[in-house]
């Protein structure tokens, strides 16, 4: 009974299914926030699976996702800026929750990998993910404050 895989499946059920539900329904503002949260959830699941399957090579997946995930959300924020109507009340809370969830996962996998460059790599992934998540969610809320502006090109 691998604890890492149990955590990964719990995080999948608690994180990815609501994200799919949030992305498929509701106003556009909610959907983009859900997609942003989905990126973080899947990146954390990748870190847990890398530990669960005892394959350090899988952390490259989390690395590429931590780099490209927030970029995808920024693409949405940039190209849909005209239509982003109102940001959900719980938008900030969801971002805080996902960033808060990043810390234990990163610390746990660092503890499991032990001191060394691999641990620094996991910390780097966590920092990259959290920074991307915060920047993307701030852009989403920022996009609402001045939606009447000329369209970005």
């Amino acid at each position, binding site marked *: 009974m691998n604890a890492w895989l149990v955590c990964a499946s719990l995080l999948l059920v608690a994180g990815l299914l609501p994200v799919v539900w949030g992305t498929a329904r509701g106003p556009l503002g909610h959907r983009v926030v859900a997609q942003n949260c989905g990126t973080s959830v899947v990146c954390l699941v990748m870190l847990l699976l890398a530990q669960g399957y005892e394959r350090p090579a899988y952390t490259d997946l989390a*690395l590429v996702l931590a780099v490209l995930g927030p970029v995808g959300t920024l693409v949405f924020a940039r190209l849909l800026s005209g239509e982003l109507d109102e940001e959900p009340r719980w938008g900030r809370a969801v971002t805080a929750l996902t960033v808060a969830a990043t810390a234990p996962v990163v610390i746990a996998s660092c503890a499991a990998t032990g001191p060394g*460059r*691999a641990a620094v*790599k996991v910390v780097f992934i966590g920092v990259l993910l959290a920074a991307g998540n915060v920047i993307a969610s701030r852009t989403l809320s920022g996009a609402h404050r001045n939606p009447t502006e000329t369209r970005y090109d």
Partner: protein
Amino acid sequence: MRRGRLGATVAEILVWQVALSVLWLVLISTVDPLELFVGLGCALVGAVAAVAARRAVSGR
């Protein structure tokens, strides 16, 4: 002034290259001379791109 700007650019590229080489060291699993050489090359490419991007954005 032209020489001053060139010096600043080279310095900035070197700073970026050092930072990106450290990042490369963190990324790779086994360290051997060839990896370091390739890492320095990639870091140089990244550094030049970083400086060019900053220059393009600031409109100079």
